[in-house]
C-alpha cells in the first residue's frame, strides 16, 4: 500500500486517498450490484451506499487488496436491501440499453458482434436466474476475476465452500445454457 498521505489526517486528505484506492473498482462493484440487485437503479443505490459505508470504515481498513474489501461491503449492502424489501420478483433486463458489452474483440464483423451480444445477453440472463449463493460466486470468479482466496473474503466462507459452490454453480449454469441453446435451435 502506498505510504503517501499517511500523515494527512484531514477529512479531505482521507477522501483523496480513499478515492485513489477505491474508485478504480467502481465498475466491478457496480457489476456485482447489477447481478445481485437485478435493476439498474437499485444497483446504483447499492453501489453508492457501498462507497459511503466503505469511506466511513476506511480507518479500519488495514491495507491488503481493496477490491475484495469493497465487494464484501457491497454484498452486505445488497443483503440488507433484500432483507428490507418483500421478496423481489425476478425481472429480466435483457432489453436494458445499458446492458451493452463494454468493448468488442477487434476484428469482429457486425454479424459476429451481434451474435456475441446476443450470446452475452443470454448468458447474463442465465447467470441472473441462478440462486443467489451460486450467482455471486460465478460473478466474482468469471466476471470480476477474483482468486478463490478473495472470493472467500467477500462471501465470508472458507475456501472449501468457495470451491464446492463454484462447482455446483458451473454445473447449474452449464445445464441452463444447454437448455437455452436447444431452445434457440428449435425456434
Amino acid at each position, binding site marked *: *500500500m*502506498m*505510504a*503517501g498521505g499517511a500523515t494527512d489526517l*484531514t477529512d*479531505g*486528505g*482521507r*477522501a*483523496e486517498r*480513499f*478515492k*485513489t*484506492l477505491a*474508485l*478504480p*473498482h*467502481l*465498475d*466491478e462493484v*457496480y*457489476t456485482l450490484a447489477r447481478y445481485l440487485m437485478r435493476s439498474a437503479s437499485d*444497483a*446504483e443505490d447499492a*453501489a*453508492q451506499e457501498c*462507497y*459511503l459505508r466503505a*469511506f466511513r470504515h476506511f480507518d479500519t481498513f488495514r491495507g*491488503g*487488496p*481493496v477490491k475484495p474489501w469493497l465487494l464484501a461491503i457491497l454484498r452486505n449492502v445488497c443483503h440488507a436491501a433484500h432483507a428490507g424489501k418483500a421478496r423481489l420478483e425476478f425481472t429480466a433486463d435483457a432489453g436494458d440499453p*445499458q446492458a451493452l*458489452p*463494454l468493448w*468488442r*474483440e*477487434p476484428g469482429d464483423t457486425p454479424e459476429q458482434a451481434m451474435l*456475441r*451480444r446476443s*450470446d*452475452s445477453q443470454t*448468458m*447474463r440472463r442465465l447467470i441472473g436466474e441462478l440462486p443467489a449463493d451460486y450467482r455471486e460466486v460465478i460473478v466474482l*470468479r*468469471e*466476471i470480476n*476475476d477474483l*482468486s*478463490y*482466496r*478473495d472470493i472467500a473474503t467477500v462471501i465470508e466462507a472458507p475456501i472449501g465452500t468457495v*470451491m*464446492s459452490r*463454484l*462447482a455446483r454453480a*458451473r454445473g447449474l*449454469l*452449464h445445464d441452463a*445454457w444447454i437448455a437455452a441453446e436447444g431452445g434457440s435451435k428449435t425456434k
Partner: protein
Amino acid sequence: MNCDEAAILMHALIDGELDAGHAREVEAHIVGCAACAARLREFQELRRNLTPAGLRYSAPGSLRESIEGRLPAPPAAASRRAVISSFALGAGVSAIAACGLLVMVMRNDDESRILGEVVSAHLRSLQAQHLTDVLSSDQHTVKPWFNGRLDVAPPVVDLTAQGFTLLGGRLDYVDAKPVAAIVYRRRVHVINLFCAPAPDFGHRRAVMESLHGFNVRRWSENGLNLWAVSDINTEELAEFGEKFEAALKQ
C-alpha cells in the same frame, strides 16, 4: 482420487488454483476417467462462452459523480514550494538538517514520479496493442532480443511452472531512458516487469506500492532497478517477485 473429489477439484484446476502436486493428481484421474474428462470439456466450453467483457456492466458517469460529490472535498494542498520554504525558514532547524530534509523531499518526489511513469507505461502497453516487440514464451529468444537495444542485459526467466507465463519482451521508456519490459501473464492479468540500470550495485529490498488500483513491487539487485506492475493483488504480485528473485539465484 475418486470422481466426487475430481468433480470439485477440476474447477480449481481450470482456475489455476491448484499447486503442481494436486494438479497432477486431478489430471491423472481425468486421463483415466472418461466421464470426468467429458465434464471437464463441458466446463471449458462453458467458460469460452463466458466472455467477461460482454458480461460486465459499466457504472454510469452520474453514479461516479454522485459518489465523489458525497465524499469530503480535497484539502487546499500545500504547494511544494511552501513545504520547502517552511523547512528553510524553520526556526529550530539548522541549515544542514534542512538540506537533509530537502534531499529527502526531492528523492521521495522522484520515486513517486517514477512510480507514476511505470504505471503509465504499463497502461500504455495494454491500450496500444503494443504489449510485446518480441513475442515468445522462450526465455532464450526473449533475452538475446534485447542485445544492442539496451546497455544492460535484462534477466529473463521462464516462470511458467510457477504459474506466470512468459509472453515476451518490449522496449519501453521510463524517466526518459530506455528500459526493458518483460511481459508475463497470470490468468487474464498482464504483469510488466521493467528493468533499468541502477546507479549502484546495492540490493534494495522489495517495496510494495499502489497507484490508481495497480500494484507495483519495486526492488534492486545486481545493478538493476526492477518494477513489477500489474492489476493482480499484492499477494500474487509479491509471489511473482519472490519466484523471480529465486529463479535468478539458481
